[in-house]
């Protein structure tokens, strides 16, 4: 768009035509105060805080609703403007309770900040303030009406942003109030976006209210541990008797792929960390009962038994099940440990999406995957199957808001009338389980139309496909319904479009990472078949080259008495995958977990692990975006899976440095490159060390193995600097190994909904409170009613 020139406070400013004055001012570093204005939400003009003087206009004008025009002369700091702001704050504070000392928002309240910057020192108000008692609207949302300044942000973010429309305004004048959709309570997606966006302490979080003050917390930006979308979340951490306590989750750092967004799990689903069932001590089975022991004993026993079994029975007698919620570094380390130390390829995880098929089909089509950010900018989107509103809340947010803000076209094909159809430019219903036929039809197999054209005529399907083929930039999204050959069909279709990209939807926080890091019996990191160890051979030495057993085969192996040891890291296959616990009664079972899960209950050794909020590393979301996981909290008695694996290896008598190449870079060339004498380098490192500047490079430092990942896993060679700075980077699958075709039935989608999150979810008090509340999504009822 053409640029427009204007003058603000004597400064020449140039901005694209159509820019709002408030944004133009911001771009020039001039703050215009605002309450009701919020980028990407509809304009209100309600708070009148942004009044500025525009030459030739008799009255002050709202900068938030004024579009800039050529030659505009604007003043934002005249006496008149200052008085207007001051007057507005005074009026606002008249009825405001000013209970800042107990208010949750105190210390991070926009009204406080505005009052300090623009308000009056003293109040003229001497009458009685209007009062109303606070109300609980849901397990997570409370409303303290007198604090509300009626900026309508909550109403808009819920309606426009979430498409839930659970909040509204009732009554008029000074009696105006925000109200929930069910008269006295809310039935909604409980995302808490309204709380987050509230500039004051009117909407407060059931999980956080009255717990602490913002300045008493440390704020740690990390990645959500629940679904596979990878929202950036900021955890508020406070010291407590058992280490540190996570007291809040929010998205105060809006730089993440999720921007403003967090769903209920990202915002409230951190309290599992402090659940009273959390394990704080290793357990060893003695006389048939799991009894507490020291870490030393646990490592000793585990190391010894695993070594014995390996040495006596060979690696074939050992199997490993990895996690979809541990970091990339841990996953990489785990499979490296399995392959190089335990000598087995029997390693698998809970597969929820067919990434290997994606990789296989993508061969020869590099850069065909889309990032979460690209999705938001895509002019057209196709989604086959899945219900992102429930399974991929961030993805749903991106889709919805891409349609709303960029008028993107959304093509939906689904067996259910999913909520996103409200944004769809076309919605085609298909019989359940026919997603693969849709893929085949897209790939050009016209005969497949018979299987899908139940509600829509074959002609309409053909017109639809023609239209899709004309889409210049299409992002194609699909979930677990599309596996194996169907993935190949879709990619065949996409590859023929000018610039189509794909997103394959897995279910857990690091499902993609688990796949990328090679938690497969037949695939090494980067989807290299174990039969072609190549680079890895050089690095790792011996690697068994025969593909190992899949999860289900492990159970059969155990049943046949051939599995002597099972090592489970952060997974609960007994509950989540229906693995028969009794088949392992003859095996030595080691389980690392937070809780005594159904799987841990059958273990011989249970090792209390730290969760993703208590350690550092990286996650890869389902799109392939690599992000930093940063340690926020700490719970006494637990260890990260990374450390546990290293300690077990150590107990087995392994040279740990071979597993984790730590402390390698004692930069001997540092001094030389600066032209100094030898010896200089040593002094330099002494100096660095003394100041704590040199990275610790301990065997427990996941960064040490990240070096190896970046070197050996194609696509992961992203900027370390950006990574550590907390930025997301897309790992394209280009250069990956050839992938493979797996038995499609090995994929078992998580049974999670918006308020559940596998085993972890069962220990989230807040999620449970919402579920116990007999909670139904209002949207679900609405879909059903239609």
């Amino acid at each position, binding site marked *: 768009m053409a640029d427009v020139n204007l003058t603000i406070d004597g400064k020449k400013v140039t901005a694209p035509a159509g820019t709002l004055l408030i944004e133009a001012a911001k771009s020039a570093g001039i703050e215009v105060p605002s309450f009701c204005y919020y980028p990407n939400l509809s304009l209100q*003009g309600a708070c009148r805080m942004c009044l500025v003087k525009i030459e030739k206009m008799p*009255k002050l004008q709202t900068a938030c609703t004024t579009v800039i025009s050529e030659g505009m002369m604007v003043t934002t700091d005249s006496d008149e403007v200052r008085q207007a702001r001051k007057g507005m704050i005074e009026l606002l504070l008249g009825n405001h309770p000013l209970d800042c000392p107990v208010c949750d928002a105190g210390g991070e309240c926009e009204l406080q900040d505005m009052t300090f910057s623009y308000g009056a020192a003293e109040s003229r108000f001497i009458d009685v303030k209007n009062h109303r008692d606070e109300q609980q609207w849901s397990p997570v949302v409370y409303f303290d009406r007198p604090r509300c300044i009626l900026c309508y942000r909550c109403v808009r973010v819920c309606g426009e942003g979430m498409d839930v429309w659970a909040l509204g305004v009732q009554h008029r*004048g000074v009696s105006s109030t925000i109200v929930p959709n069910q008269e006295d309570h809310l039935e909604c997606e409980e995302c808490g976006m309204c709380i987050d966006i509230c500039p004051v302490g009117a909407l407060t979080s059931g999980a956080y209210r009255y717990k602490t003050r913002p300045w008493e917390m440390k704020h740690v930006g990390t990645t959500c541990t629940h679904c596979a979308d990878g929202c950036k979340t900021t955890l508020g951490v406070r010291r407590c008797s058992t280490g540190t306590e996570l007291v809040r989750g929010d998205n105060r750092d809006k730089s993440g792929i999720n921007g403003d967004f967090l769903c209920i799990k990202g915002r409230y689903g951190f309290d599992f960390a402090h659940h009273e069932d959390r394990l704080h001590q290793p357990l060893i089975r003695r006389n048939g009962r799991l009894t507490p022991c020291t870490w030393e004993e646990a490592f000793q026993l585990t190391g010894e038994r695993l070594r014995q079994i390996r040495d006596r029975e060979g690696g074939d007698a050992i199997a490993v099940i990895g996690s979809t919620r541990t970091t990339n570094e841990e996953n990489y380390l785990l499979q490296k440990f399995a392959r190089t130390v335990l000598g087995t390829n029997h390693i698998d995880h809970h597969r929820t999406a067919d990434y290997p098929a994606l990789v296989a089909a993508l061969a020869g089509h590099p850069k065909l995957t889309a990032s979460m950010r690209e999705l938001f900018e895509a002019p057209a989107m196709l989604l086959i199957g899945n219900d992102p509103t429930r399974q991929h809340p961030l993805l749903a947010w991106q889709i919805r808001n891409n349609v709303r803000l960029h008028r993107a076209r959304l093509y939906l094909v689904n067996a259910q009338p999913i909520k996103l159809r409200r944004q769809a430019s076309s919605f085609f219903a298909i019989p359940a389980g026919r997603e693969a036929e849709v893929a085949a039809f897209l790939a050009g197999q016209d005969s497949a139309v018979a299987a899908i054209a139940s509600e829509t005529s074959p002609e309409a399907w053909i017109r639809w496909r023609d239209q899709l083929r004309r889409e210049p930039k299409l992002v194609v999204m699909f979930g677990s319904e599309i596996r194996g050959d169907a993935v190949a069909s879709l990619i065949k279709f996409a590859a023929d479009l000018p610039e189509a990209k794909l997103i394959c939807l897995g279910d857990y926080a690091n499902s993609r990472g688990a796949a990328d890091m090679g938690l497969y019996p037949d695939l090494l990191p980067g989807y290299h078949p174990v039969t072609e160890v190549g680079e890895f051979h050089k690095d790792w030495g011996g690697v068994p080259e025969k593909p190992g057993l899949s999860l289900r085969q492990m159970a059969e192996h155990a049943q046949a008495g051939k599995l002597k040891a099972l090592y489970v890291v952060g997974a609960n296959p007994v509950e989540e995958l229906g693995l028969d616990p009794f088949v392992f009664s003859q095996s030595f079972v080691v389980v690392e977990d937070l809780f005594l899960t159904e799987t841990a209950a059958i273990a011989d050794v249970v090792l209390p692990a730290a969760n993703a909020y208590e350690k550092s590393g990286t996650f890869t979301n389902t799109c392939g975006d690599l992000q930093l996981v940063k340690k926020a909290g700490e719970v006494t008695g637990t260890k990260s899976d990374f450390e546990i694996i290293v300690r077990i290896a150590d107990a087995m008598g392994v040279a740990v440095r071979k597993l984790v190449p730590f402390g390698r870079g004692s930069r001997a060339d540092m001094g030389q490159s600066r032209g100094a004498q030898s010896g200089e380098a040593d002094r330099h490192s002494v100096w660095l060390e003394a100041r704590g500047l040199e990275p610790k490079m301990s065997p427990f430092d996941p960064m040490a193995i990240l070096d190896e990942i970046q070197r050996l896993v194609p696509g992961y060679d992203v900027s370390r600097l950006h990574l550590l700075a907390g930025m997301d980077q897309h790992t394209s699958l280009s250069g990956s190994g050839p992938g493979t075709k797996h038995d499609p039935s090995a994929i078992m989608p998580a049974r999670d909904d918006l308020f559940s999150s596998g085993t972890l979810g069962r220990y989230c008090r807040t999620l449970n409170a919402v579920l116990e509340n007999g909670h139904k999504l209002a949207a679900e009822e609405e879909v059903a009613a239609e």
Partner: protein
Amino acid sequence: MADLVSHPDEVKVVSKRFGLGATEIDRYLELDGYKAVRKALGMAPESIIAEVKDSGLRGRGGAGFNTGLKWSFVPKQSPKPKYILCNGDESEPGTCKDRLIFEHDPHSVIEGVTIAGLAVGAHVGYIYIRGEYRYLSEIMQKAIRQAYARGFLGKNILGSGFDFDVYWHGGAGAYEVGEESALMESLEGKRGIPRIRPPFPAVVGLWGGPTVINNAETLASVPHILLGGAEWYAKLGTPKNGGTRLFCLSGRLNRPGVYELPMGYNLKKMIYDVGGGMAQGHTLKAVVPGGSSTPLLTREEIDVPMDFDSLMKVGSMLGSGGVVIVDDSACMVKFALRIMSFYQHESCGWCIPCREGTDWLKKTLTRFHSGGGVRKDIDDLQYLSENMLGRTFCPLGDAAAMPTISIVKKFRKEFEDHLDGKPCPLEKAEAIERSPVMA
């Protein structure tokens, strides 16, 4: 139904058919009814607009914008349907003229709406009637039915090939919905909250289509202009203030009532001649010249012609034609309180200054009037009002602030008299009202 009054100085244009049974279409037709539409059907749209513009007809809803000029802003081509909206929400305290038009001459409004439709190329008109005027809705409904039956509305009106539909719509009891954009929201079935402007209704109005919105009296004047000619109408009034308007005289007068007088009629004469002067035993204290939203004039300021420009010159407004006479028995603090109670009750609550300002002012005035005032309240009343003025989202905030500022400025002494243990010099002390107002 209200009794009609009359005075020899009256020039009856919009009130011409009052009391003559014109609600019946046959009677209306006998009294030149629907002749103007016939004439308009033979005119080019531009000529209709020019005629109205030249007549100097200015909006009778309060702002006094030239009606023809407003119509000329409607784009000729529009992908969305255009609409004519008749604003019959009449809720301004002191104003009771539109109701007489609806009661006595509903067809003139239908005719005016139709002519506006012809002028701007709209095919649908809405007549929005104040919720409390239920009986008028019935009269209007009947009139619309009759107009359809006789072919003045509907498809191909009077065989002209022009289609025009008119619907009536009842309000739900909010003054704010008289504000044009809030009215459109209300008509669309939403909360009566004003809209951001620009875009203005002439470009983006009802359901996003270009919309002409006019007061009922404005539209009822249009047929007369077309029949009598722009020149005739303009000459009835003063320069740039064409024609006549209905003045609603209220207060302790000998002959209060609604009179149709030429624009520019002298206010003093209006009170003492037309209204028959102050009732026995009362003297004049102040005048609200154009509905409760307009700044008050003192006894000394009433020698002024009642047209838009002259009143602007003396720091007030002609407004909606509601002339309220305040006599010596009225306490000005109580008067300010009464006005503020109205605005506090009617504020839609959308924007901070009006929502909070009216509430705060009402509380202060309540306390002040019942004896709890302190000296700084007087300045605070003015300060707060001035902080609302010109800064609200819609003019309702101004409407609350302007009279208050004028009362505090012009009757400061009465405020001071309330201090120091004199609750109200004119009334017995009342208990302090302190009830919170939140619903």
